């Protein structure tokens, strides 16, 4: 065989425009820049309150928030609230995700069901779920139960849609390969459906966590005196602005850390999907 069989791979055509060149230099500068922006904002805040341009009763000051934050880490009230809210979120996530994965898979597999129920579900998804909160409170009372059920409801809506959309990523040609090479039902699911739907499932799980989190906290904030949400309300009503902000800061940091970890995990696990960089990586960040 006089052939050039082992030609080097062609350079991959990039479907999406590459992001602006990330040279090490820009990266380092950017890191400094981010810190600078945050520090500048804090200084402006501190100075404005110090000179009385904003009333520190209402927005507190960065220093006061810092102090409250360190005190908070030792307060049993806050720690037990964190623990109970964390437990509620986990429970809501599990319940909502299980329901959502089952419903989403069924909808993803049946074109008819998708056509019938996708529009109402999409409407529900972009409707502020908090308007249904009174129903949950009326039925489940004020307390952990309604927080968990409401969180599970929020999570389930998003997981359902995203799992169903993920199933749509399974390509016909790959299903044809499975048929032509005589894969059994289980083999088709394992070798073709699951890997294809993985990015969608990942997005769905992220939505599950995020919305279980938001749902539980909203329910607590609106009508409950326990948990982090309840505590935020109580502090705000007592005009403990520093404590309120410190607690929000803690929750925000947790949310950002979780989101960042998830982003990395997702890109790592679906790395073979090189060409879809533009679409796939934004889904988590933009949600």
């Amino acid at each position, binding site marked *: 065989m006089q052939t050039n069989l082992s030609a080097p791979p062609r350079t991959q055509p990039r479907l999406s425009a590459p992001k602006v060149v990330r040279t090490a230099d820009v990266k380092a500068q950017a890191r400094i820049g981010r810190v600078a922006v945050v520090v500048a904002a804090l200084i402006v805040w501190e100075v404005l309150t110090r000179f009385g341009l904003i009333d520190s009763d209402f927005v507190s000051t960065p220093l006061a928030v810092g102090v409250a934050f360190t005190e908070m880490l030792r307060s049993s009230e806050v720690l037990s609230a964190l623990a109970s809210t964390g437990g509620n979120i986990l429970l809501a996530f599990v319940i909502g995700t299980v329901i959502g994965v089952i419903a989403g898979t069924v909808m993803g597999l049946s074109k008819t069901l998708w056509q019938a129920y996708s529009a109402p579900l999409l409407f529900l998804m972009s409707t502020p779920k908090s308007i249904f909160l009174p129903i949950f409170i009326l039925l489940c009372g004020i307390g952990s139960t309604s927080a968990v059920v409401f969180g599970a409801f929020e999570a389930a809506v998003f997981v359902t849609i995203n799992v169903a959309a993920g199933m749509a990523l399974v390509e016909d040609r790959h299903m044809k390969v499975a048929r032509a090479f005589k894969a059994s039902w289980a083999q088709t699911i394992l070798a073709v459906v699951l890997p294809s739907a993985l990015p969608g499932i990942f997005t769905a799980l992220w939505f599950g966590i995020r919305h279980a989190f938001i749902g539980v906290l909203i329910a607590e904030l609106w009508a409950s005196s326990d948990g982090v949400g309840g505590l935020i309300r109580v502090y*705000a009503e007592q005009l403990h602005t520093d404590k309120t902000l410190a607690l929000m800061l803690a929750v925000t940091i947790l949310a950002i850390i979780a989101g960042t970890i998830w982003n990395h995990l997702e890109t790592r696990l679906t790395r073979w999907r090189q060409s879809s960089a533009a679409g796939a990586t934004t889904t988590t960040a933009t949600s």
Partner: protein
Amino acid sequence: MKEHKNSPLVWPLRALGLGALLGVWAFGNGPGGISPLVLPTIPRVVEALGEALSQFSTYEAAAITFGEILAAFILAAVFGLAAGFWAARTPLRMQVFQSIFVWGYLAPLILFYPIFILSFGTGVGSKIGYGAVSAFFPIAYNSLRAFATVQPTMLKVAKAFGASSFQTDFLIKLPSALPLISSGVRIGAGASMITVIFAEMLASTAGLGYQLALNSQTFAAPQAFAMIILLMALVGVLQGLVNLLLTPRRDRGKITNIAH
């Protein structure tokens, strides 16, 4: 193959779903033994809805909520687009602000309302400010990405044909950035709806969300359910407007973009 005709079962299935929902509701009231104090009967809710629709104050409340959402959204759109455009101008700025916008995006802003009440009171202003802040980040983030990821070949074409930097911005960058911007605006519209309505429910003196919270806290269950239905209608109208504004492309693959 391109135009998928809907299955004839679609509408019967939808009717079935609605029937099931109403059936469960009716069952809960009757054999289920749930007290009408917590789950009002369907006729009572319809009655309350009729009452609400015949009162001028309901329309006033709806107008307030609508106005707040609209104002918050417009503020967020203007500032978000400007911020995204400005931040995409240099690679360094882009790197710095992309992360900051993402943080703002990831932060559960919906929990921050108490701060807004403390600073701006319980009036209309705090709702608008709060809605605008929460809608700002998705719009800014998506605009930044949109302006930063213009195809290099297009920019090359612009350069080769002697476009000025103004022309490049308006004839090349803006059109090619539009799809991503519009998905950001869509998310922003959703965010302003969510936050404004929740803010009304938490602490306010007017608006449909306030009516809902008031009715629910005074255990006027039928009236609360009527408000929920009215709020869903309002949200439906707003979503319809957003769709009209952003030339909808009904395409299944893009669903995740509408998510909040």
